[in-house]
């Protein structure tokens, strides 16, 4: 089941995230980052019934050495991130609204250092696949294997970037979030993520309650959300009629 999203509301989150993450992006990708924000705005303004929001070139984040554990130092390790989100406005949604259905989303991430790289992606699964609807998966380039697909409620590009930055720059990313000057941006992202994640957690709990026989983890591997619309960043459901 696909889910509706109010992109004007998500745009606020994207703007906050871009402002927060700006200094973690390599300068060569500074304009790519602002392009991402601009393209989402333009897409919303144009209001086409079917469109994609995507990076044309991957965004390169600045490298880190201290990400593994206390006292462990690596060589410079880089993060590349690109994504494509496909939106369709269902017939039931008025054209004046900024609400679309997410019909697919894929955020590709490559983490690399001089002696190797690892590619993976966060998918909002297409219908021809098994496994959790929202999942993290290592690239099939490694071993030509499409599994395992691991449930991940982080599927919007900003959430995926947050997830990786939190590991690649553990200290600096948290320090920035704690800084007073970041508080407005952080609160926008935090509230939106919290309400979104809660919706999925409750949805999973409901799914578990409806099946007393299967193992819980096994059920997750076949999870398809029954959420009609993502809540806005204040936790409100999208008002009907769309």
């Amino acid at each position, binding site marked *: 089941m696909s889910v509706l999203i109010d992109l004007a509301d998500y745009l606020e989150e994207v703007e906050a995230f871009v402002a927060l993450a700006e*200094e973690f992006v390599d*300068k*060569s990708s500074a304009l790519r980052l602002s392009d991402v924000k601009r393209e989402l705005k*333009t897409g919303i*303004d*144009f209001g086409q019934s079917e469109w994609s929001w*995507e990076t044309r070139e991957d965004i390169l984040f600045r490298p880190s050495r201290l990400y593994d554990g206390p006292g462990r130092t690596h060589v410079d390790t880089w993060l590349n991130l690109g994504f494509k989100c496909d939106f369709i406005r269902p017939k039931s949604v008025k054209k004046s609204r900024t609400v679309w259905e997410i019909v697919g989303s894929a955020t590709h991430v490559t983490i690399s250092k001089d002696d190797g790289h690892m590619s993976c992606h966060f998918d909002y699964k297409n219908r021809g696949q098994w496994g959790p609807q929202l999942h993290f998966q290592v690239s099939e380039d490694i071993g030509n294997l499409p599994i395992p697909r691991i449930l991940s409620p982080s599927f919007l590009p900003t959430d995926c970037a947050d997830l990786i930055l939190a590991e690649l720059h553990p200290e600096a990313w948290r320090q920035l979030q704690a800084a007073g000057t970041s508080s407005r941006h952080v609160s926008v992202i935090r509230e939106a993520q919290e309400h979104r994640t809660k919706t999925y957690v409750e949805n999973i709990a409901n799914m578990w309650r409806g099946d007393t026989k299967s193992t819980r983890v096994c059920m997750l591997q076949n999870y398809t959300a029954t959420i009609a619309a993502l809540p806005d960043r204040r936790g409100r459901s999208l008002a009907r009629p769309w």
Partner: protein
Amino acid sequence: MPSDIIYIDDEPQHLLAAAKAVRAGKRFAEFMPPDLDGAGAEAAVANLWVFDFYNDDEERKKPSLRGTASNGLSVFQQFRQLVGDARPPAVVVSNHLEAALGSDINPARRHILAEEFGVEWVAPKTLGNGGDVIAEILALADAAETLRASSARLKAAGPSEYVAELCHLALKLPQNVEWQRAAIREASGWRPPIWLEGGEDHRVQSLREELAIDPEIRSVRGVIAWMLRQVLPYPSFLVRDRHVAVRLGISLPCLRAVNEAASGLSKSLKRVRYKGVLSDFDAPRWWGAGVDAIEWGLPRQREARSESLRQLCAPIPLVELEVADPVVVSDADLVETDEIAAAADCVRASDEHFPAEAAPAWVKIVDAKQDKALARKVRQEDQRELVDPA
């Protein structure tokens, strides 16, 4: 049109001749200091004040603290006393701006010099044989007239409609274009000055009785100053052709040739060209949201996009930008040049004059390494690029 430009100069012939050459001589009411009788009433309703800086050769040759200064800024202050804050935009002209300011003059940073002078604009008096200065002066007076004519609607606009009204009435944002909302939002992000409510007249009683003022001119001046100091000198919601080239991925010479030719792209760009107040001020500009709309209509796939651009540029052969992540390069004064380079070869820099909304300038790493003053303007996170690896 009656006189709407007050011009104070002991040698006004040159500029007036240039004004007459473009049939604008009657717009000037000129006064020669120290004989300024009668200037007050006209100054109170004028669209623009223009002051020559040096009205006394002796003052220029040997400045001193003796006697009463008669330079343009002194006269400007006298005029200000007459009308208080309800004054139109003011321009200081001089062929000796360096002497007047006591520093080097970079024509591209005149908005900063003007701010230091406490006026809205400065110009060398006989720049380009006087023609260019006249074009600037007339553009400023026209802008004030346009804003004055729109003042009732701008004043009446509700808080949520004000920026849209300003965009349509003064900036001539086309109606019913699909990028209209984006353009208004972007303009709003640059915090246009609000249109002031009446306010009190703080002049002395005798002046209040003697000389009527137009309180709307304060807001007129505010918008013009905003355009001159923030919107026009930096890539804002209005951009120059260099940024159009970068956004579309076309080389600047190719874009300029395309613009001169009858091509599909030149037609599209014509529709998003900025035609509002001060549109002819220092090179043409385009609505950034309009350029984004053109860009949005191009295919996403590289080859299909190139083919589409090729067709749009025809009959001019398409020359795409070869560099990755192209940026417009600025010089040591952070003034943009026609050079476009890869972001990897540049660092970001700004100074205290950059508006908060403006993106940092891009300067070549090689330049910043050789110029300590420029290096100090480079952003902290890019400073490491200026250090050669050990």
